[in-house]
């Protein structure tokens, strides 16, 4: 009797539903739990002129190298073990994109404003700094109470699309994201008109218990589609399954130092097919054996 619904789709179908010029938020944090398979699908596509919003890891350098990004809204771009992404640095130093640097806390505050459907949220953060230079459209707001304090009115960062990676998902769009830190995946999902989640495993139905239910970070009403892509976070960390692939990140960074390095990397490493990519990276078993980093 019950009718039902199914949110599964391929990364290619997801990309086909996007349009040039969209604002795309990417979850995770630096080299941690990035929806890299979805990003690779974008790299393999003709999509362009994107505004990207991220706590940037290698996905940002790749999208910049591929000329996909018109505007970047970010707190930082870093792979931690390789602090400065050379593709990012080069693009920044050549003025290849509009750079809207934010404080890390402001970025989540702007996403929260969008999530809560208010045009702005007030804060002291950013005042006195070049956040205001980097974002000339930012305005201040005066408290209507007796304190009369002048605050930064952090504008809502509304996303057309959010891309996230989860450990597990079901066809209804429920997700389970393991690992010690949710980062701000929930806010990315809530701030977006549509959200696509890649997951190492997509099952028929997630049956969670009280302890794990909290690790469904965003309700499925915010999830438009789920893409099964085992090791889809590679080369970033994806606890508890695997750590980051330092060798792979190093090879990517090294490409920046070579003439035509990105084109070769795009052709030979990213390639044309995700399954082939995973094979080239050693396969699922090898990736899942990458140790988790210790800090």
């Amino acid at each position, binding site marked *: *009797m*019950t*009718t*039902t*619904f199914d949110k599964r789709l391929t990364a290619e179908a997801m990309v086909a539903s996007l349009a040039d010029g969209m604002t795309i938020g990417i979850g995770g944090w630096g080299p941690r739990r990035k929806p890299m398979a979805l990003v690779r699908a974008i790299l393999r596509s003709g999509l362009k002129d994107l505004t990207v919003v991220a706590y940037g890891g290698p996905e940002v350098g790749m999208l910049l190298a591929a000329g996909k990004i018109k505007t970047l809204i970010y707190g930082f771009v870093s792979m931690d073990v390789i602090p400065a992404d050379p593709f990012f640095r080069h693009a920044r130093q050549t003025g290849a994109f509009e750079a809207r640097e934010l404080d890390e806390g402001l970025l989540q505050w702007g996403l929260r404003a969008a*999530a*809560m*459907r208010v045009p702005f949220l007030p804060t002291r953060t950013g005042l006195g700094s070049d956040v205001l230079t980097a974002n000339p459209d930012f305005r201040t707001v005066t408290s209507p109470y007796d304190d009369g304090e002048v605050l930064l009115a952090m504008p809502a960062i509304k996303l057309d699309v959010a891309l996230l990676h989860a450990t597990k998902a*079901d066809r*209804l769009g*429920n997700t389970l994201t393991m690992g010690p830190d949710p980062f701000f995946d929930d806010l990315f999902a*809530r701030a977006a008109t549509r959200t696509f989640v890649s997951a190492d495993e997509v099952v028929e*139905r*997630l*049956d*969670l*218990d*009280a302890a*794990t*239910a*909290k690790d*469904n970070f965003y*309700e*499925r*009403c*915010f999830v438009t589609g789920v893409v099964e892509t085992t090791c889809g976070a590679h080369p970033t960390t994806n606890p508890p399954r695997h750590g980051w692939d330092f060798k792979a990140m190093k090879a990517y960074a090294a490409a920046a130092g070579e003439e035509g390095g990105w084109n070769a990397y795009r052709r030979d490493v990213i390639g044309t097919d995700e399954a082939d990519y995973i094979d080239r990276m050693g396969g699922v078993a090898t990736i899942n054996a990458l140790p988790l980093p210790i800090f």
Partner: protein
Amino acid sequence: MTQEFTLAELVIVACADAFRGNGEILASGVGTLPRIGAGLAKLTHSPELLMTDSEAFLIEDPIPLGPRTGTPALSGCMSYARVFDIVWSGRRHAMIGPLQIDRFGQTNLSGVGPYAQPKIAMLGMRGLPGNSANHINSMFVPNHSKRIFVEGEVDIVGGVGYNPARWLPGMNQTAVDLRRIVTDLCIMDFEGPDHAIRVRSLHPGVTFDQVQDATGFPLIRPEGLGETPGPDDAALAVIASLDPKGMRASVFKDNPPARRS
């Protein structure tokens, strides 16, 4: 042939119908009949609805009323912090039973009488101002009367509605979205001119005049006003599965049949 059904079961179907076509939103039916109604909607025409275990978790299989056996399979978390995230995002439809309702759809849970010193104090505003300003809302009224459907404004406006005097320039009231009022006499909606309250269908054996007489403000009577549809056998089976102890029988005095004699 369809079984006999009770007024409570008719109302459950009407509640369920309010959640039809809402999209993927959190369906919060508060009280016995709205809760069974939300479950009926999810198990029949609207599987995409989100629903809680009435405490802090999301579930995909609506939980029957009464004592449980075992732990339900959970699909997510709906702590109160997340409730407000969902409410403010607009992805919810709440159906509750207010103390008073006025012609603008404004609702009151706070008390009867002046705010400063009400004659009858109730619990407080609860989530009415936020619910009504942010997402779809419907109402359930078990005893359609002028005491609830008041003549003027409700005494204390918790849930906001379509009263232009309450909205100042620059305020965004576009998210106010009142849908259905399900009572023991009829279903009403806000589809009259300027969101005026309209009788949508009459329960079997009830007349428009009866409804109007029990209401403190004029109602819109649409062309071809028809009868509220009841449950089919399949719906009755789902209702029985959601309320195995028959708690729906104690909502209306003497658990009358759907058709007034």
